[in-house]
């Protein structure tokens, strides 16, 4: 029995991949710079050294080829975990992901399974140049056949990656890159919650803040600030954008009667739009205020010196909280 260890999100994913590589000989790690370098964020640090070049593969620099060959490997029973180096570079692989990876199980009447995990460091706040700070999760959640998740804590990073690797469906695994170095406890002997179950990150009574990935921390900070003003906010970490755990969300909103959804991605047609619509359908008579959304603007992700004006922050979240409470 091992005791819980404190580690960063990046290390938790590394440990998770290590455990998967140890326990399942069919698990492969592949991508650009994931081997010798250990990935540009060092998430795969040391894995090639310990598991060899055939299981931790430095691929040519070609995202469509990475995902396309991962599909072929999966057809022969492998479980590739592929890394896309940055969110903005996934699009050359978008065709393979949408037309092939997402559909082949259905096309072939379930006769073939494609257990491929695609890891994508996503989101802004790190002062990067263009194409390195995007939040394209809705573009994937919209596609039938894909499962889309994002952890917000080291514990979830470890366990959700373990579960994604064991899942028989393709999973797009969005990693909150600006939180890679946040620390928390990971109990590798725990019994984890199901992959697509939402998590109550903080209990409250007056309003529910729903978020995922990097915005969970922002929402927790908002809840702490609101408490000083006498408001009790519940923070719900969705964890999964496809499918979405509307049951847990509904129970929370029926208790608090108000919902604000927060993500970095543009509000327009984002995850929050689906959440708002579904919760309005399910909780219409419980709601004291319309569901409000907080997120990025419908503009290309800005240059680093302007990203603080673009990204939802504590103030923008609290402003929405105030508006919802004022109804």
């Amino acid at each position, binding site marked *: 029995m091992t005791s819980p260890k404190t580690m960063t999100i990046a290390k938790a994913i590394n440990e998770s991949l290590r455990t998967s590589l140890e326990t399942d000989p069919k698990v492969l790690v592949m991508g650009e710079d994931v081997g010798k370098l250990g990935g540009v964020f060092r998430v795969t640090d040391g894995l090639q050294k310990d598991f060899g070049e055939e299981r931790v593969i430095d691929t040519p620099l070609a995202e469509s080829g990475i995902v396309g060959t991962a599909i072929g490997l999966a057809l022969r029973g492998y479980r590739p975990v592929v890394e896309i180096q940055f969110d903005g570079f996934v699009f050359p692989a978008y065709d393979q992901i949408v037309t092939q990876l997402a559909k082949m199980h259905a096309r072939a009447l379930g*006769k073939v399974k494609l257990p491929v995990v695609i890891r994508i460091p996503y989101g802004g706040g790190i002062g990067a140049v263009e194409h390195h700070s995007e939040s394209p999760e809705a573009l994937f959640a919209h596609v039938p056949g894909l499962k889309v998740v994002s952890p917000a804590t080291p514990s979830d990073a470890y366990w959700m990656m373990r579960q994604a690797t064991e899942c028989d469906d393709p999973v797009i695994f969005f990693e909150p890159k600006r939180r890679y170095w946040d620390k928390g406890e990971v109990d590798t002997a725990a019994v984890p919650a199901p992959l697509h179950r939402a998590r109550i990150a903080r209990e409250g009574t007056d309003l529910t803040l729903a978020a995922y990935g990097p915005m969970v921390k922002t929402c927790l900070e908002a809840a702490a600030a609101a408490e000083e003003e006498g408001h009790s906010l519940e923070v719900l970490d969705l964890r999964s954008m496809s499918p979405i755990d509307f049951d847990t969300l509904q129970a929370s909103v029926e208790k608090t009667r108000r919902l604000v959804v927060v993500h970095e991605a543009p509000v327009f047609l984002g995850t929050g739009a689906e959440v708002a619509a579904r919760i309005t359908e399910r909780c219409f008579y419980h709601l004291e205020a319309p569901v409000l959304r907080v997120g990025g603007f419908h503009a290309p992700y800005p240059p680093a010196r302007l990203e603080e004006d673009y990204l939802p922050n504590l103030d923008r979240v609290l402003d929405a909280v105030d508006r919802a409470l004022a109804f």
Partner: protein
Amino acid sequence: MAHLSPPSPAAAGPAKRSARPAKTPPEATGPGHTPPPGWHPRIDPAPLLPEPEPYRLLGTPAARDVDPALLRRLYEELVRGRRYNRQATALTQQGRLAVYPSSTGQEACQVAAALALRPQDWLFPSYRDTLAVVARGVDPVQALTLLRGDWHTGYDPRARHVAPLCTPLATQLPHAVGLAHAARLAGDDTVALALVGDGGTSEGDFHEALNFAAVWHAPVVFLIQNNGFAISVPLEKQTAAPSLAHKAVGYGMPGRLVDGNDAPAVHQVLSEAIERARTGGGPTLVEAVTYRIDAHTNADDATRYRDAVQVDQWRAHDPIDLLERELRDRDLIDDAELKAVAESAEALAARLREEMNADPVLDPMELFDHVYAEQTAQLREQAAQLRAELDAEEDR
């Protein structure tokens, strides 16, 4: 290497190209004039170059080295294949099939591809490759569910090791590379054969697949069926390469050029490439020069973009006629055997007619069954919605 000499001005087309600088470097004139640090020649490109003209067997003395039983088998499959194409096209006219991209004229490529593989190998077809799929042993009716609109892939890809007929061009190529690489990792001798057309070679996935295959030394063979047209666009608007087979050289794998209407030649070139892959020699790119006798599909009008003279020239280079001539000239087949082949083809067509004329029984609820291996609550809700709509329809 006469085939590598620069094209004559006429052959080079209207674009004038300036003379290239001399290929031998000038002599160094002082210290430090050395090649860039770390540079060294990687591999010799000469052995990778394709044949100067498409390799042929039929009508050449080398044809006598081919097992007559193989020639007869190829012939039977060609005849059955053409009959299948004709029947499937007729079924589109009767509304029994939504669409059919015929491979008439390309049967030698289709049949040779299927027959060159062993059971453990995998075939990665695109949408015009139904014949290869059927010749590999997939049920002829199941192979058409895609085109009838019953379901996208009507057969179990694992049963005969045939990946789904792939519609987005070249997307199947990296899959073949990944599967071939899996064979290497697992230490077995499986080979993947991926089919693509001349148009598909312009896609990025063609490039990425060939590059991955060569870097990984994967046991995969790529067969380009160069049938002259990507729907309406001819090869000269698709590529400026000396040949499609030459593209292999840039990736560091051998290119082979073969007469795509010479079934034993295609079979031999593919068999050599497959054997090479199986024994650790890595990937090969094969270009088979052939022609799409029919339009792109039954919905296309080929007279808008090509003239009848060209079609007639290719009809005179017909894969079935070429092989039949060889068999007859050398008394390798008699009238009774020819009749048996024709009857086998008719029986296939009759079965196709009969089974395709039966209305398929489809269950709309199957829409939800295979979206995920592990079903989601959201889909269960949507399934319940459709169930209710269907029940309401029945009650009406």
